[in-house]
């Protein structure tokens, strides 16, 4: 019996031993990203970006002489896991603040934990609900911020462009994931403001092989334009199906999730003429020299390509913005959660990858619709749309 017991104890110690983290005088920051799983297209570049920034800051001597310790957890796009890891970051790792999660649903899922434990969270996800408490008159939750542009801003950019070109009758389609659903909700909600009617609203599964049926239905309804809201392989398949059906005369808009040149390549020519709203960091070389963001976006693109040997995705930019806003706050506030929160809320004129941030007690996103520019695919590359 005692032999068994001691064996069990040894095993326990081994397991726990690996978990105990070294205690050094550092600024501990947590990060929660969907690095693997269905949302890895978000979480992977976000994690890489955050780690890159921490390396850069630490190499430059840290903040106020303190190194940053970044603890990154992968929630795999799973709400339960995300909840657990958030608790772990706060209760066990005792971090000062957390950036992430990558996905709107998961950000909403962990708001109660951060509110209760009074820990600042800077989400990298899009939904406006993250910074708008509908049970409190739409005011932001005190401890929750986000850097990603709300989907409503992307929709407004698209609708503004449509309005300019006299488009009034559109069809929308999107995948059945949270990403597609959020876009659909905003597209439907904002359409009346621009005098736009939606004649069709079609869905498909993120793993579907073919969207011809949905497009055929849309074709029969003769809309003036189509907006598609999805990520992953379906946003490419949908453009190909559209071309096969001879629908390339109908203007086609993609969401900002389309902002990766790989998608243009994969479309094998079918992306030509497609519009999408993009943030500055996708198109640094298209920005005029006078643009305030030109410098930071160009630098980020260069650093990222040098470190990871792959083109950057716009989603990594959300993590860039969140990290730098947090680092700036740490510089002024030091290791005190409440002071950090206040410092983030007082961030003004921060030039980031996705716009110029002006936070305030009533705005925890701090961006305007100018954060997006309408871009058109031209000769296999991005071009500013007229």
């Amino acid at each position, binding site marked *: 019996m005692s032999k068994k017991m001691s064996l069990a104890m040894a095993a326990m110690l081994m397991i726990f031993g*690996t978990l105990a983290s070294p205690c050094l005088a550092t600024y501990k920051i947590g990060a929660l990203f969907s690095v693997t799983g269905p949302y890895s297209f978000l979480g992977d570049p976000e994690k890489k970006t955050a780690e890159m920034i921490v390396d850069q800051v630490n190499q430059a001597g840290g903040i106020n002489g303190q190194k940053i310790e970044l603890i990154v957890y992968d929630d795999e796009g*799973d*709400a339960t896991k995300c909840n657990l890891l958030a608790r*772990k970051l706060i209760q066990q790792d005792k971090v000062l603040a957390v950036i992430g999660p990558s996905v709107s649903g998961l950000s909403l899922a962990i*708001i109660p934990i951060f509110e209760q434990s009074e820990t600042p969270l800077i989400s990298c996800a899009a939904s406006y609900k993250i910074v708008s408490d509908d049970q409190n008159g739409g005011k932001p939750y005190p401890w929750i911020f986000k850097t990603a542009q709300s989907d409503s801003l992307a929709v407004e950019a698209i609708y503004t462009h449509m309005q300019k070109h006299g488009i009034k009758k559109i069809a929308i389609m999107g995948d059945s994931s949270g990403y597609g*659903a959020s876009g659909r909700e905003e597209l439907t909600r904002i359409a009346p403001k621009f005098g736009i009617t939606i004649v069709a609203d079609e869905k498909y599964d993120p793993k579907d092989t073919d969207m011809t049926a949905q497009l055929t239905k849309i074709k029969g309804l003769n809309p003036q334009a189509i907006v598609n809201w999805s990520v992953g392989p379906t946003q490419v398949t949908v453009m190909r199906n559209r071309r096969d059906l001879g629908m390339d005369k109908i203007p086609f808009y993609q969401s900002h999730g389309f902002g990766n040149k790989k998608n243009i390549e994969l479309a094998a020519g079918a992306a030509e003429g497609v519009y999408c709203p993009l943030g500055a960091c996708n198109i640094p070389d298209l920005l005029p020299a006078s643009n305030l963001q030109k410098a930071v976006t160009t630098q980020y693109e260069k650093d990222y390509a040098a470190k990871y040997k792959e083109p950057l995705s716009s989603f990594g930019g959300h993590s860039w913005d969140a990290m730098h806003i947090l680092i700036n706050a740490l510089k002024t506030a030091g290791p005190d959660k409440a002071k950090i929160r206040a410092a983030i809320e007082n961030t003004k004129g921060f030039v980031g990858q996705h716009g110029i941030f002006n936070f305030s007690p009533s705005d925890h996103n701090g961006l305007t619709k100018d954060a997006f520019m309408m871009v058109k695919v031209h000769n296999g590359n991005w071009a500013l749309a007229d």
Partner: protein
Amino acid sequence: MLRFSKIPIVVLAGFLLIFPLVCTGISALHGYISLMVFAGIYCLITIGLSLLMGYAGQISLGHAAFFGIGAYVSGIATVRFGVNPWFCMAGGMLVAAMVAALIGAPSFRLKGHYLAMATLAFGLIVNIVFREESAWTGGPDGLSRIPGLRLSGFMFNSTIRFYYLVWVIVLAAFLFAINVLQSPAGRALRALHTSETAAKSMGIDIARYKIMIFVFSAVLASLAGSLYAHFMRFINPSTFNLLFSIKLLIMITLGGMQSLWGAIVGTVLVTFLSMEWLQFFQEYESIVFGGILLLALIFLPEGLTGLPNMLAGRGKK
């Protein structure tokens, strides 16, 4: 004679009682308390499933749906209508029972893989409803702002309080299941698993028992769903997808199919493995987990609870 010894149950209760105290003492283990909350919630489901699959011999690949029904009944009724959470919990169990009775009657005419597919299809359909009826369910982004639980002024607002709430319920369900197995009803269940032919000649109403146990397991899953909703205070459809149903199967198989203890051991182990220990492997996680699963199937054909017997058997040789 199937008889559960009292000693291990008392040991389990004792362990559960002091577990959070130990964990709060050691900072590196603090996260284990919330892990155990989820493990407990999952145990509620696997206790029912263990009766259904291990003893009544019926496969279900759709129990995530009942888990989801409980969670969404609780979530929707509290958020949209402000109903008292405890009533919602009861309501969810009632809804799950009705759905289970409705789907169970025709399903149990099916055998083997056909039953597996039918329950799988049922689970997928329910999940699509959660996703699509966004006016009620909040769609794929989920339903947030679900209230926590309170009992006449006492809030279950800390992880530890919720831990005790969940595990008291789990222990109650466990004792209930043990009582069932040691009773005439349990004898009938085990009988129809061994030989339906002989069970019929004993006058046992096989269809009734299968549906009864299916309903019971659905009710437990629904209760687990309600607890989950009030602990997370947020739910989204992907929590209740096919992957989760499969994870439940893995828990039961790893623990040992024909053993209620197996359900508990397997559930806690798989929860810790998939939520914590295997995180270490990052992108290799799925390979490692698959590998562990295969090794367990090969070397522990009776699951973890079969391990003592196996060792004893080897010792004799």
